[in-house]
């Protein structure tokens, strides 16, 4: 019998308090009646009501969702391709440069990516007249560029751990490579592709710095709106907005985690039963 690691339990409790106390405090104060964000003035949901009639917030949220959806979808397609190229084609010209290119945006400071993209877009417009000013298009292109790396990593690692003989078996049974891709490879890695899409979606929905560089007049995404408000200090309506977003995403992730956990448990049970039945 091992001794209980009291020290580790203590650190874990402190660590999770560190993670969650600020968020809990923020949620609590979002129901504060007082206009002063930090002084408790009784329970109220009026800030939530105000938020729903704030056209600026709603516009920003709608813009962010549209950009996130589009950029995540394109980034997932490109990232899946890149992941397959890296995991499946062992030799092609420029492979080293390619793998470097894919991993660079993961570690590149956002200010550098931001400034280089905006200067690039300005230069491009100067030379060929496209993109016409900065806004939806340039933000989306920038988001695709940095989030495709994340999709690539997720897809590549799933492919690397996949048994290649499954693909060979499909080919052996008469499927040409493209058929193998659609019949076998893509269905098997589909959870990774979905995870990659969700990751790209939330990254886009959350991005401040690169968006700040590549946006134009009239394209204020939700994070940019929040950033400009937060600079001025803590307000109860920001608390309410933050609470809605955190709870929405939190519930979504927790639910996804729970469903995955349950599927895994069911799978384990199936395997156990199959072994038991054979005995």
């Amino acid at each position: 019998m091992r001794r209980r690691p009291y020290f580790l339990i203590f650190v874990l409790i402190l660590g999770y308090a560190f993670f969650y106390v600020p968020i809990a405090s923020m949620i609590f104060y979002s129901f504060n009646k007082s206009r002063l964000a930090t002084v408790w003035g009784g329970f109220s949901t009026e800030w939530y009501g105000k938020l729903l009639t704030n056209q600026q917030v709603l516009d920003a949220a709608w813009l962010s969702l549209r950009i996130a959806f589009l950029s995540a979808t394109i980034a997932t397609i490109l990232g899946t391709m890149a992941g397959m190229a890296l995991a499946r084609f062992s030799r092609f010209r420029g492979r080293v440069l390619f793998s470097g290119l894919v991993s660079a945006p993961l570690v590149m400071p956002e200010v550098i990516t931001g400034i280089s993209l905006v200067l690039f877009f300005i230069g491009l417009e100067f030379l060929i007249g496209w993109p016409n000013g900065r806004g939806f298009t340039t933000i989306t292109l920038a988001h695709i560029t940095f989030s495709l790396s994340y999709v690539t990593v997720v897809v590549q690692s799933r492919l690397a751990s996949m048994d290649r003989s499954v693909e060979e078996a499909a080919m052996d049974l008469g499927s040409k490579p493209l058929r193998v891709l659609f019949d076998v490879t893509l269905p098997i890695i589909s959870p990774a592709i979905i995870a990659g899409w969700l990751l790209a979606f939330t990254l886009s929905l959350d991005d401040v710095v690169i968006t700040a560089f590549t946006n134009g007049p009239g394209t204020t995404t939700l994070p940019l709106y929040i950033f400009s408000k937060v600079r001025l200090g803590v307000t109860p309506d920001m608390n309410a907005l933050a609470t809605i977003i955190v709870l929405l995403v939190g519930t979504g992730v927790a639910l996804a985690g729970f469903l995955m956990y349950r599927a895994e448990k069911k799978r384990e049970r199936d395997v156990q039963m199959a072994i038991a039945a054979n005995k």
Partner: protein
Amino acid sequence: MAALAPAPTSAQGEESHLPKAHTFRAWLDREAWRQAIIAIPYLWLLFFFIAPFLIVLAISIGTAQVGIPPVIWKDSFPFGTFDNYAFLTQDDIYWQGYLNSLKVAVIATFFALLIGYPMALGIARASGTWRNVLLLLVILPFWTSFLLRVYAWIGLLGNNSWFNKGLTWILATFFPFWVEGDHIQMMNTNFAVVLGIVYSYLPFMILPLYATLEKLDRTLDEAAMDLGSRPWQVFKDITLPLSVPGIVAGAMLVFIPATGEYVIPSLMGRGDSPMIGRVLADEFFQNRDWPVASSVAVALLAILVIPIMIYNFFQARDARAGAK
């Protein structure tokens, strides 16, 4: 049963009487789609990642001017000038910005490791269901908005918050000689920036550490204990050395973005000693000095090249080990 005729003949034979769609499929089967799979993301990254960076390099050796474009190059060899880089060494604000960034990043990385390591170890040692729940609780903030999590701390650190007041009361009770007044100034200090960075990037520290620690064979611990090591010695002799790859990965994942961090110092830091990310943004947005902003970016990347290479080296080694 498939025909046994040689492949080229059969492919041609099929094509001649098949509709267009099948011809496209045949084209795809002739490995063209493989090239497409490589080429499309490759070209995307060359176009939207390498080309922009080359433009930054080019602008960093240009000269600022009033007009459009706000940058101009010499029309004869060597076309550019290193004046902008020289300027970075002359004005205090730049090299202090770099120093300030490195200082904050090093301290934040250290504290993230200090908190993250025992947490990762605790998660890795937890039993089945607990481990999943704890892991989910680390990943959860990672998915929720970064900006809003920083915002949550701003709420706590403010001079009138319950947290600040509580902390002031505790400190005033136990260490009265430290505290003056009814609050502690925490917002707009380097302390707040370090705290914000540790808080935001802690999952990046915990997850690679957890991945390494979780893979460790616990029978090694038992073997060491069997040979007479006490728990602390087991940790020092076995667990710690074997988790070095996780430590390096986690430290780099915190250090690199922390150095170039813009949002946290803007919201929580002091205005008078900005970090380099803030300097870069101000140079671009406020001063509209593209060449100087570009050379700040190039110099920042130059500083980060070494940690990025260390990170890639360990990742590649890990990948090789995984392949074996």
